[in-house]
């Protein structure tokens, strides 16, 4: 069944979903793509962000997005601290490949278990005025539950992109994994630069977590479900490309939405990952990779 109205609705839903996908993948693009740190605990940090948004929302009625913004510095410090531990324990000894991976597995489980111990295993959601509302014009609808996270995601992308491209430290973060020595010759400390980059990566998880709990209910292990999706977007983007991550998220979101609407939702994940496979076959460096 095809109609223009259905197509427009599918495109809107796809763009909004894509923005959300990109937001949850942004931190991984920085850590995995730019810093070469395989942080498989990133979804767990996002869930931690969701629970903090839940806590502030249920206790004090704080808006989840406001909570996410407030907690970005806290998450930044957690990320910077986590990197320091990772560096001292593994990277400094050139031992990061396997043990580093195990370290982040451990971090993921610690976050999950800590959340289970504090909050239990029940599903958690937040309340906000824009959840459950929709703007409508004729047969076209824009759900604000998806639109608000989309706008926040775009703002977050713009901020991170500007920082990475317009500041010395931002450009240093992009360079650190490529040529450490050259960076040192420019007077920058690679360890501090990676610490800064990893802090930013985890900082985005505070806001991404807030966006996640606006869209779906969360429980401590729900992050595991999205590990594949998040890594797929980072790889499709071309590891390390911030605009690429946004484009890749939008491509996956639109593809899923169109397939779901016109061919059936059971095909949506297959098509999304089919796009990833095709991209890797014809452009192994990813859409925006060099």
């Amino acid at each position, binding site marked *: 069944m095809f109609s223009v109205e259905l197509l427009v609705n599918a495109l809107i839903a796809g763009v909004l979903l894509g923005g959300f996908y990109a937001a949850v993948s942004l931190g991984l693009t920085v850590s995995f793509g730019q810093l070469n740190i395989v942080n498989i605990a990133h979804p767990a940090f996002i869930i931690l962000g969701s629970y903090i948004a839940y806590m502030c929302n249920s206790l004090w009625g704080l808006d989840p997005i406001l909570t996410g913004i407030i907690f970005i510095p806290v998450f930044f410090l957690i990320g910077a601290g986590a990197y320091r531990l990772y560096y001292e324990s593994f990277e400094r000894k050139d031992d990061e490949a396997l043990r580093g991976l195990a370290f982040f597995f451990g971090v993921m489980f610690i976050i999950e278990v800590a959340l289970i111990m*504090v909050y*239990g*295993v029940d599903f958690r959601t937040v309340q906000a005025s824009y959840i459950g*509302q929709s703007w409508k014009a004729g047969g076209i*609808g824009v*759900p604000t539950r998806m639109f608000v996270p989309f706008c926040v995601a775009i703002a977050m992308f713009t901020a991170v992109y500007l920082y990475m491209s317009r500041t010395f430290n931002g450009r240093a973060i992009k360079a650190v994994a490529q040529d450490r020595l050259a960076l040192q010759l420019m007077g920058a400390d690679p360890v501090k630069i990676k610490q800064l980059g990893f802090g930013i990566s985890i900082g985005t998880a505070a806001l991404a977590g807030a966006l996640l709990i606006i869209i779906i209910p969360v429980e401590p292990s729900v992050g595991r479900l999205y590990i594949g999706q998040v890594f797929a977007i980072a790889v499709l983007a071309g590891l390390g490309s911030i605009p690429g991550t946004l484009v890749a998220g939008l491509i996956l979101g639109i593809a899923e939405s169109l397939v779901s609407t016109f061919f059936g939702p059971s095909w949506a994940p297959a098509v999304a990952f089919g796009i990833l496979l095709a991209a890797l076959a014809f452009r192994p460096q990813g859409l925006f990779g060099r």
Partner: protein
Amino acid sequence: MLMKSKHKLSRRGWLKRSLAMAIVAGAVALTAPAQANDTIKIGFSMALTGGLAGAGKGALIAMQVWAEDTNAAGGLLGKQVELVYYDDQTNPANVPGIYTKLLDVDDVDFVVSGYGTNLIAPAMPIVMQRGLVFPSLFGLAVNEKFNYPNYFQIMPAGPEPLTDWSKGFYSVAMAQDPPPKTIALVGADAEFAKNAVKGARIQAEELGLEIVYDESYHPKTPDFTPIVNAIQARNPDMVFVGSYPPDSVGMVKAATEVGLKTKIFGGGMVGLQFASIMTALGPKLNGIVNYDFWVPEPTLKFEGVEAFLAKYQKAAEGQGVDPLGYYLQPYAYAYLQVLGQAITATNSADHAVIGEYIRNNSFDTVVGNVSFAPNGEWAKTRVLMVQYQGIEDNELATFTKAGTRVVLYPEEWKSGTVNYPYAE
């Protein structure tokens, strides 16, 4: 006599010993103090982490309440009851190993199932091979292929679970004037949801309804707006959904946002019975007709259920589980009541004798009188179809009141009338 090792352990030896100690420590931590001869051990796996942990932990608390009640009343066969359980992590692959360990290492006297279809089916070959009585907790049509005589399922799906599950949904809809003519079927691509939708499809065909949409979706779908838009484009009179908790929330939110226009919406949505989800959705639930198993309506005040709920709610405080415990918890208590009553009545721990007794008798439990059909399901269906009505806020107390989830089906337990249509 304490023996000391004469040999220095190799690194591999240390590893083996450490692993063995970790396993033993884990087992000790997860079980009550073992007392070999003066206890009756009941073993099971349970989803204490992972996607079904919310319900699994609630079920465990209910089972612990039963064990406390039973032991306070003198135990079974003059022995205290001990529950031995492991976390299956909501992973079916963990289940066979857990049951093998329960039977071969922990030497339990009885086993009962964990929670949910996906986690019951993997235990079936093991219990069948050993001829054990197997009370089961909320499996949908698990025994359909196995045909195991000692399987007894406590969820009141009825003797034909596939179709009995959604019978009430159709019964309510087809009683309207004019009756609906078209239906959309949508469900998660997972065991329970597929079975629920399969049963709904069979009945739709039998009733001559035109199926205008029939699709499944991946369980980790984050946004249901495209699916609801696609359904709306077909303009069905009925929308039957088979979904798990996160999807149910997504589906209700999307239906509200899109403004889904249909006459009856719901059916098999898991999660809408949970306190955390009901309070999250609040007034968005109004009008949805969905299955349920126990609600605080005056027609369902079975003997002992309120006393059980009071104990459960006290035990659940601060545990991060469903604070009300209306959905699964009374049944988690009841399936152990059935086993306990059968053991007491037969004065035996012989599985063949107990199985025969359960097949041929009925049991008074906190969920009412229970008897089983030859396939191990309830002899008569009691899947309730309830409609959310008059919900104006998101407060927990709202959902403890009669009248917010009105029973529409079966007739025997009916407590109100349907608000029809859902939206026009």
